[in-house]
């Protein structure tokens, strides 16, 4: 069998189809797009939500920038004030959210891509709603 029979070929670097490498890009970000697409398919079919922990992956700041530029900005940006600011921003792909948690000092403590119709943190918890209703009742009784 000749080498040509193998359907995988080495592409010499000078004719590489890949974009010229920018400094700081590791090539670890592009595969995430496929993973996100798969997670979206699952969300649509089963309603199952998912998240990708960006701090757990070997991504450089340049990789994160690349990913964030590719995913773009959507219509909704949520800011949460809970021991430091958190931002939950919809990307240009509805259902894909870029979630960044900061501590009180403003440092990023963790970063996720969440695939969901609405991110978990945005929803009000029934018990908190109950507390809010009790508060309203109190207001009404004072009228």
């Amino acid at each position, binding site marked *: 069998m000749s080498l040509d029979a193998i359907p995988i070929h080495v592409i010499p670097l000078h004719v590489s189809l890949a974009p010229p490498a920018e400094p700081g890009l590791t090539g670890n970000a592009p595969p995430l797009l496929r993973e996100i697409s798969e997670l979206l398919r699952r969300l649509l079919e089963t309603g199952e939500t*998912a*998240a*990708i*922990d960006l*701090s*757990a992956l070997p991504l450089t700041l340049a990789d994160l920038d690349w990913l964030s530029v590719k995913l773009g900005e959507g219509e909704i940006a949520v800011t*949460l004030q*809970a*021991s430091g600011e*958190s931002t939950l921003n919809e990307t240009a792909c509805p259902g894909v959210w870029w979630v960044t*948690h900061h*501590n*009180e*000092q403003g*440092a990023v*403590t*963790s970063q*996720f891509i*969440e695939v969901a119709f609405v991110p*978990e*943190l945005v929803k009000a*918890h029934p*018990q*908190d709603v109950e*507390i809010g209703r009790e508060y309203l009742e109190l207001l009404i009784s004072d009228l």
Partner: protein
Amino acid sequence: MQGPLIDSLVRQGVSRRTFLKYCATLASMMALPPIAGRAMAEAIAASRRPSVIWLPFQECTGCTESITRSHSPTIEGMIFDMISLDYQETLMAAAGFQAEEALHSAMKDNYGKYLLIIDGSIPLGVDGAYSCIAGRSNLELLKEAAKGAAAIVAMGSCASFGGIPKANPNPTGAVSVSDIIKDKPIVNIPGCPPIPVVMTGVLAHYLTFGSLPELDDKGRPKAFFGETIHDRCYRRPFYDQGKFAKTFDDEGARNGWCLFELGCKGPVTHNACATTKWNGGTSWPVESGHGCLGCSEPDFWDAGGFYKALSMPADPLKIAAAAAVVGAAAGVAVSVANRAKRSAAKSAHETTSLADLEK
């Protein structure tokens, strides 16, 4: 998400969202899948606060300081809501017989179920007389308390490996917890002091999964001690480019180059400082311009001098045999360079080099 703990947090003004956010970050730090953050929040919120007994032995209280002063208002402070801390001499209001009573009733009421935290080493010299509480030696107390413990957490390098009391010539005959207790699960959280979030992480894991996290060969949680300081150091690219600070005040030091030649023990030290940082994420030793001392490794005090460069460059491929010769040569080269620098510094009288610090 409901239960006694979250109710008490909400009463203290910690919202459910704050708690969820905290658990998500904690899960991320422990390299657990994102979904675990949610599971952790559910489990911890509903947990029935396990009884924790904290015994201080031959120690400096630095470990306690690290934990108690860490919380930027509430976060690591949650640890004290997650557990029922039934005995901790430094923090408890009771003293004397009352304190001893609290210890014994906690041990009796929660026999087989409590978590035992130890900080400090255990001196064996002169029948343990070097460190006693209520007239009983640390050895005796440890053996008694360990009997009914579900698991033991050795807080800090002294409890984990003997630490500074064990440093040569070890006058008190100090040993670690694992040198004495052989029949209980022991988690080592070394560091001088240890990183607070590691403690919270171990507790959260215990509450969520009912077991201790995965440990490395030195009994340390892999999630935090799986990589070296060097692996995750933001100065690592300079090491790879061969750019080293040669003194603490040269151009390299000002440019933030690698501190390897100034004695940084990062390449052989497993800890999470480079990622979790200290003082609420403000900075950490290497970021402030000083090499890592290697405080989370056994016998770091006797590891050959804080300002002496490691004799062998870190070898990620572990080609030990071939590298040994090269490494020895590199070590000689560094020490020759150090000697040259010392005389240069002496004549110039302007720079302070590692060689000056290392008499």
